[in-house]
């Protein structure tokens, strides 16, 4: 079944059907989540209304790691099975992951100024997240640097898998080192430490953002498949013109 789904033609057909539904559901959940954030969820007893920034910052941080894991698993698909859809998935995930990492860093900084008194601190969580953004930018640059898609995919796969070492560092930095950034408050062994009145809108926004990312990933993969068809046909046309001239 997976092999059947991994066929580019089959993927184009299935993703074309799924995309409007995923995109529509994403928009609905983001709208519902933001309504709850602004009109239902209470202000925090310490942070006041500034806690509203967390409803963007936390999902963006999760998605930064999520899309890196999508890239890393696709990189394995490229290197082990040499599957063209894995190449396409890697390439489509990179700008989405980079964008959510940027949102995470900017919103974190804008929350930090009124709460910590500073926009930036070189603590382990913040620094490892900045490294994550730099890795994403390096991957995007490498995709642009190598024209031949299969060679580019193999080179990017190696960089992606090497960079994957940063994922657990980001996740566990708050446990391994003494950081200004607070420890995890949702995904904990002893359960979330956030009150339900804040946890529910946070999770709704997070699912909405995730579906937005998934829709963008599907759309990016579809476009990349078309780009490869255009490239193949352009080469065929050039070969035909060369043959005619000869």
């Amino acid at each position, binding site marked *: 079944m997976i092999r059947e789904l991994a066929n580019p033609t089959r993927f184009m057909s299935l993703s074309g059907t799924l995309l409007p539904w995923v995109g529509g559901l994403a928009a609905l959940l983001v709208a519902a989540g933001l309504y709850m954030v602004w009109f239902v969820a209470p202000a925090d007893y310490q942070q006041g209304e500034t806690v509203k920034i967390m409803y*963007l910052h936390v999902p*963006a941080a999760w998605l930064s790691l999520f899309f890196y894991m999508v890239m890393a698993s696709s990189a394995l698909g490229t290197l082990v099975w040499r599957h063209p859809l894995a190449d396409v998935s890697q390439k489509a995930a990179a700008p989405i992951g980079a964008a959510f990492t940027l949102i995470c860093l900017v919103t974190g900084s804008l929350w930090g100024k*009124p709460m910590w008194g500073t926009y930036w601190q070189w603590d382990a969580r913040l620094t490892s997240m900045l490294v994550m953004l730099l890795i994403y930018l390096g991957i995007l640059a490498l995709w642009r640097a190598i024209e031949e898609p299969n060679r580019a995919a193999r080179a990017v796969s190696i960089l992606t898998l090497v960079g994957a070492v940063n994922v657990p560092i980001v996740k566990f930095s708050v446990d391994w080192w003494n950081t200004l950034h607070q420890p995890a408050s949702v995904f904990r062994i002893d359960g979330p430490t956030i009150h339900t009145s804040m946890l529910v809108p946070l999770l709704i926004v997070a699912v909405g953002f995730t579906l937005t990312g998934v829709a963008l990933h599907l759309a990016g993969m579809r*476009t990349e498949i*078309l*780009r490869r*068809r*255009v490239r193949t046909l352009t080469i065929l046309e050039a070969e035909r013109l060369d043959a005619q001239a000869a």
Partner: protein
Amino acid sequence: MSHGFFIAFSYIVTALVVAGLILRAVIDHRMQVRALAELEARGVGRRSRRG
């Protein structure tokens, strides 16, 4: 600066970045669809290798 500024700025930045991603996806897709249509209109197809 009031806390309202930091909240508003966070939401504006997030909206702009997500809108940028969506816009980029739409424009890129349209460009590839147009390029593919132009190639096919010129009679370039996968079978042209054989021809």
